[in-house]
């Protein structure tokens, strides 16, 4: 296995702790809220629950989505988690035993995403062009009209009401109340990924036409960041909501969204990867950033302090998802089916 050139790493703050290996592309994974388990889904549709974390980590195959799986999400109390698949179903699993609890008919098409509200026992499912919201009794209590295209991404408002949906022609904010019209954040372009700033001030999308579009949630004012080398799929906000990281080919950019917002400001550029940066993930509390590229490199940065990598490894295959658990553990899903957990050096960069 290749190693990272040590000269570009100023501190070795990324240390592999343990891994489990499946034999299929990890398309999504999620930490249980109490950090004792990880649920993972693969591109061919397998659903795994990883238990007894640590060097003796065990995993079990608990079920399957026919045709393939797309996403996994835990309910905030950790009692259950939901997976979505090509079979038109969102499946709900017991968070402790991994037993299947029920299958929700989310739609006729692929269920691109099922995601629990961060605070309530409400589940949002996106299948084809339609969003549905489910309550604890597994009943649909809100059904959107058809969006202008298949839903590309879904994100709950982290600080306030509503769930946002990205599709062709912008973002729609559904307020989960049938008497209130959804709010449209229009944009004549195709949004692919959606990220709320943690303070709910901004809604940001990465777009097909090599741009990043952002809206001020309150005023609805919008702006656009241009000049990316291709469609933008990698976005991450730091915990303060001031810094937005975006992938841009082999580099990534950091936009200062504090004060008046990013308009008119030049982003900071970070070079180090030799391949396309596919994934970016800021720590949930601290301000370190994990980045993964198409060549299998995983780096940790302290972007507010300097532009050198503070931790780096070469994975056995390129990452397919990055998920933080607190600031000290990072789970990496890989294309070859591994789920690797890294311990991150003490402190959060302060």
């Amino acid at each position, binding site marked *: 296995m290749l190693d990272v050139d040590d000269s570009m790493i100023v501190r070795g703050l990324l240390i592999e702790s343990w891994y489990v290996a499946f034999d299929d592309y990890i398309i999504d994974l999620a930490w249980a809220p109490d950090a004792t388990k990880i649920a993972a889904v693969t591109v061919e549709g397998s659903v795994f629950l990883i238990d007894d974390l640590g060097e003796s980590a065990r995993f079990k195959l608990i079920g399957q989505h026919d045709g393939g799986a797309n996403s996994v999400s835990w309910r905030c109390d950790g009692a259950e988690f939901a997976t979505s698949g090509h079979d038109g179903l969102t499946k709900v699993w017991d968070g402790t035993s991994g037993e299947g609890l029920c299958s929700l008919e989310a739609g006729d098409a692929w269920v691109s995403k099922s995601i629990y509200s961060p605070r309530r026992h409400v589940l949002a499912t996106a299948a084809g062009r339609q969003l549905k919201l489910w309550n604890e009794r597994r009943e649909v209590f809100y059904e959107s009209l058809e969006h202008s*295209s*298949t839903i590309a991404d879904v994100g709950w408002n982290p600080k306030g009401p509503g769930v946002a949906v990205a599709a062709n022609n912008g973002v729609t904010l559904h307020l989960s109340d049938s008497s209130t019209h959804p709010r449209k954040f229009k944009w004549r372009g*195709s949004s692919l990924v959606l990220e709320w700033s943690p303070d709910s001030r901004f809604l940001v999308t990465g777009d097909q036409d090599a*741009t990043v579009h952002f809206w001020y949630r309150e005023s609805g004012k919008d702006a656009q960041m241009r000049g990316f080398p*291709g*469609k933008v799929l990698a976005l991450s906000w730091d915990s303060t909501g001031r810094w937005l990281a975006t992938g841009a080919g082999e580099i990534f950019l950091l936009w200062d969204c504090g004060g008046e917002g990013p308009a008119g400001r030049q982003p900071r550029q970070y070079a180090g990867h030799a391949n396309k940066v596919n994934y970016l993930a800021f720590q949930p509390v601290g301000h370190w950033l994990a980045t993964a590229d198409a060549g299998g490199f995983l780096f940790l940065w302290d972007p507010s302090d300097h532009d050198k990598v503070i931790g780096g490894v070469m994975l056995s295959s390129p990452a397919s998802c990055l998920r933080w658990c607190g600031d000290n553990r990072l789970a990496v899903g890989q294309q070859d089916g591994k789920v690797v957990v890294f311990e991150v050096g003490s402190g959060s960069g302060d």
Partner: protein
Amino acid sequence: MSTNRFQVPVTVLTGFLGSGKTTLLNRILTENHGKRIAVIENEFGEIGVDNDLVIASEEEIFEMNNGCICCSVRGDLIRILGNLMKRRDKFDHIMIETTGMADPGPVVQTFFMDDEMNEAFRVDGVVTLVDAKHVLLHIDDGDEVKEQIAFADVILLNKIDLVSSEELDQLEARIHSMNVAAKVHRTRDAVVDMDRVLDIGGFDLDRALEDDPQFTEQYRVDHPHDQAISSVGIKTPGDLDLDKFDEWLKELLANQGPDIFRMKGVLSFSDTKERYVFQGVHMLFDGRMDRQWREGERANSLVFIGRNLDRKALNEGFNACLT
């Protein structure tokens, strides 16, 4: 537009309703060619063979904010093919069947405009089926049939058992006047050798003009309707001035890009020993230096296929770029 041998070839299958697309697909899937093929259909049909994968897809066109139709891509294809790329079982070939009314433009553009698609796939060719018996009934109804013919690398003139050979000759001449670069095969029940529809290298610069489709011939046919869509071939000796040519082509594509469906050619630039090969779809242009010219071979040959092409202006514009 990168080219590498790991790119999975994609065949785009177009044709009006009833022209025989499903029959051809069935043939391709059952033929013993040893390839694993994934088919993306516009709706679930009756086909589906062990070892192959058939996925239904609803056409979803993503237009870009700049309003340029040449930048439109098919969101549904990006989603489905993006997922296929991640699977263990790789496919040797992708077939995309479009609806009878579909514009092949966004399908082809998807593989040039989207960076992930461009990296993983290459368009092998556009194959268009034409119903020899009924095409004349609807060819003038709208732009679809004409655009499908104009975009094609290969045209299967199907159902030849239902029309006379005179009618076929006329029809073929008319098709030729619209798209002089496409190869036309006459078929019954879509029976055709697989190597005429798969791995044809329609977008492959190395093979762009190797079969010399005689595109500079002038076809005289009495179909004034088709003046809207035609081919203009230019073949001329001499060397081109790179800067002048570059400027001319840029301006041409900026003004007429939406009307130029396909173009390809081999060019001779002054002070270079190598041939320059290029091809394009609307405003998307792909070109590079190729092998060295052989003795006595140096010449420029290129063809434009499009709507409202001005043969005289194109020839004059091109000739003005010669040194």
